[in-house]
C-alpha cells in the first residue's frame, strides 16, 4: 500500500485492475485505492508478471502492506525469492540503499529473499521515478513504514480473473464483475474505461470513493491556498461522509503540523504588473471557442514551471538533511475541496508542455479530481506547489510548504492598482506573488531571484 501523501497511514484497496498472470510494465495502473481524500489510481513501477494478489478488494490496510507479488522480468516461475511489490514503498529513501527494504517484506518470507533483496531494492530504486520516492519520504521516520503488519491479518486473496484465451489482461476487474452480476448487467456489453479498456466499477455506474470537492486542494500543501477549481463531494451517507471529512482533516493536520514543526519557512513577496499579459491573453482567447481558451491560472503555472528549470534549487525536496533537486518539474496545483479539505495533484512535467497543452492538462486534472481518476504519481509526485487564491479574493498568500518539498508559490487576486508606467501613473491590473521557502535548502537571495524569474515569465508572455 503506497503512501499517497504526507499524513496518510492507511488506504483501502477498492479494485484490482490486474490479475495473476498479467504482465505489467512500469507506469501501468494496477489498482484503485481509496484514501481519506479520493479514490486514486495506483501505478506500478516495476515490470514483470503478477504472481498473486494478496489483499482482497474492499480491504483497508496500513501503508507499507504487501498488496501483491510480482515476478520480475526474467525470473523463473515459482521462484520463492520473488521480491515483494507495493506500488511505492512508504520510505523510498530506504529503497535507495542496498539493503533489504524494511516495509514490504512479509516476516515469514524474510529469510528467502534476503540474498536477492539488495538487487531488488536497487532495481526498484532505479525504476521508480525519483520524485515519487522522495515525495513519499516526507521526512517522517515514524509513519513511513510500519513493519509489515501483514503477518497479523491475511484476508482471503483476491479472486483471480479467469484467464483469457491469449493470457492477456482481463477485460474487467473482479469488483466490476461482481457489480455486474448483482445488477444483472451483461458485462461484455459495457464499454470499459479502465486500463487497456478493461471494464471497471465506475463503468457500471459505481464510483467508489470518488473525491468530489469542488476545489482541488494541494495535498496538505497550504491550507490557506485556494484552488483553481473546486470539486464537489460524491453523494455518500451522511455518517460516512463525516468520517471521511474527519479523516481528511486529520491527514491535513498531520502534514501541516509537520511542516510547521520541521520546516524553517521564510517568506518573500512582490506585486507583478500583469496588465500587458492579461491583454495578451484576452487577445489570444478572443478568437477561440470557450473550450480552447486559456485561464490566467494556467499562465501562472507555466511561469512557475519555467522558473523552476532556471532555479532548480526550488524544485526539489529536503530529505536526510540535504536538498535533493528533482529531475522533473511536476507542479502541484492546490485545489480546495468543497466542505473542507485540500488536495494538490501534480501537473507532471509542466515545463515540457506548451501553454495550450498545459491548460488542457489542468482542466483534465481538475475534472479527475472531482470525478475520480487521479493517479498515485500525481498525488505524490509534486516537486513544488502553487496555491492560487485569486478567485477567492485574497490579495496575498502566506503559504505553508508541503513536506518534503522546499517551496510553495502563492498567488493573490488580480487588483487594479496605480502604477508608474513611462513616467505617468496608470491603472494597471496587478497580482501579488509570494514564495514560502525552506531556509535549510536556500537563502533569501536565491529565493528573490527565483521569485523574480516567475515574475519575468509572467510579464513576458512570449516566453511562456
Amino acid at each position: 500500500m503506497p503512501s499517497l501523501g504526507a499524513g496518510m497511514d492507511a488506504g483501502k484497496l477498492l479494485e484490482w485492475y490486474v490479475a495473476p498472470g498479467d504482465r505489467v510494465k512500469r507506469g501501468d495502473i494496477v489498482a484503485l485505492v481509496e484514501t481519506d481524500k479520493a479514490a486514486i489510481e495506483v501505478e506500478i513501477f516495476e515490470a514483470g508478471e503478477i504472481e498473486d494478489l494478496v489483499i482482497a478488494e474492499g480491504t483497508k490496510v496500513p501503508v507499507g502492506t504487501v498488496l501483491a507479488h510480482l515476478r520480475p522480468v526474467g525470473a523463473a516461475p515459482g521462484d520463492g525469492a520473488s521480491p515483494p511489490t507495493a506500488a511505492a514503498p512508504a520510505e523510498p529513501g530506504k529503497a535507495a540503499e542496498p539493503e533489504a527494504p524494511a516495509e514490504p517484506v512479509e516476516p515469514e518470507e524474510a529469510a528467502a529473499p534476503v540474498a536477492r533483496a539488495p538487487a531488488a531494492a536497487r532495481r526498484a530504486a532505479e525504476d521508480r521515478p525519483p520524485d515519487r520516492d522522495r515525495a513519499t519520504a516526507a521526512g517522517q521516520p515514524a509513519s513511513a513504514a510500519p513493519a509489515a503488519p501483514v503477518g497479523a491479518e491475511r484476508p482471503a486473496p483476491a479472486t483471480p480473473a479467469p484467464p483469457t484465451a491469449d493470457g492477456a489482461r482481463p477485460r474487467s476487474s473482479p469488483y466490476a464483475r461482481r457489480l455486474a452480476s448483482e445488477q444483472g448487467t451483461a458485462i461484455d456489453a459495457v464499454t470499459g474505461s479502465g486500463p487497456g479498456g478493461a471494464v471497471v466499477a465506475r463503468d457500471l455506474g459505481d464510483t467508489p470513493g470518488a473525491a468530489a470537492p469542488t476545489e482541488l486542494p494541494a495535498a496538505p500543501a497550504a491550507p490557506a491556498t485556494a484552488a483553481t477549481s473546486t470539486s464537489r463531494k460524491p453523494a455518500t451517507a451522511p455518517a460516512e461522509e463525516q468520517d471521511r471529512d474527519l479523516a481528511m482533516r486529520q491527514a491535513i493536520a498531520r502534514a501541516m503540523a509537520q511542516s510547521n514543526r520541521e520546516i524553517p519557512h521564510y517568506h518573500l513577496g512582490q506585486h507583478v504588473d500583469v496588465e500587458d499579459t492579461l491583454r495578451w491573453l484576452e487577445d489570444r482567447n478572443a478568437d477561440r471557442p470557450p473550450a480552447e481558451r486559456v485561464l490566467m491560472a494556467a499562465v501562472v503555472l507555466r511561469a512557475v514551471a519555467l522558473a523552476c528549470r532556471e532555479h532548480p534549487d526550488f524544485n526539489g525536496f529536503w530529505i536526510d538533511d540535504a536538498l535533493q533537486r528533482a529531475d522533473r518539474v511536476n507542479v502541484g496545483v492546490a485545489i480546495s475541496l468543497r466542505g473542507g479539505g485540500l488536495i494538490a495533484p501534480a501537473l507532471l512535467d509542466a515545463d515540457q508542455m506548451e501553454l495550450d497543452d498545459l491548460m488542457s492538462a489542468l482542466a483534465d486534472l481538475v475534472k479527475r479530481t472531482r470525478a475520480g481518476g487521479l493517479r498515485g504519481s500525481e498525488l505524490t509526485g509534486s516537486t513544488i506547489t502553487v496555491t492560487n487564491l485569486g478567485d477567492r479574493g485574497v490579495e496575498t498568500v502566506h503559504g505553508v510548504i508541503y513536506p518534503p518539498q522546499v517551496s510553495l508559490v502563492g498567488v493573490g487576486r488580480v487588483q487594479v492598482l496605480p502604477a508608474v508606467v513611462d513616467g505617468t501613473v496608470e491603472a494597471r491590473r496587478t497580482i501579488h506573488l509570494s514564495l514560502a521557502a525552506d531556509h535549510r535548502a536556500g537563502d533569501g537571495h536565491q529565493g528573490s531571484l527565483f521569485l523574480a524569474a516567475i515574475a519575468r515569465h509572467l510579464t513576458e508572455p512570449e516566453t511562456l
Partner: protein
Amino acid sequence: MNDRIRDQVAAALFEVAPELEGTTIDPDADLLDTFDLDSMDFLNFVTGLTERLGTNIPERDYPHLRTLGGAVAYLEDATSGSVT
C-alpha cells in the same frame, strides 16, 4: 423568461455544480459568489452553454452571465437572431 433557455442554463450550471440540482436558484444570485465557483468552473459553465445553445460567448460578455437571470436574458438576445 424563456423556459427552454432557462432550462439549458440550469443544466449547464448543474454540470459544474451537481449538488445544486433539484434546488431552486435565485435568478439574481451571483453564481460565482453564491455557489463558490472559480474561474475553471465558470469556464466550464460557459463552454457548456455554448455547446448547448450553439452560440459563441466572447470573454468580454462574461459579466452578463454572473446571474441566472442575466445569463438567460443575454442568451435570449444572442440566439434570437440565429437561423436554424
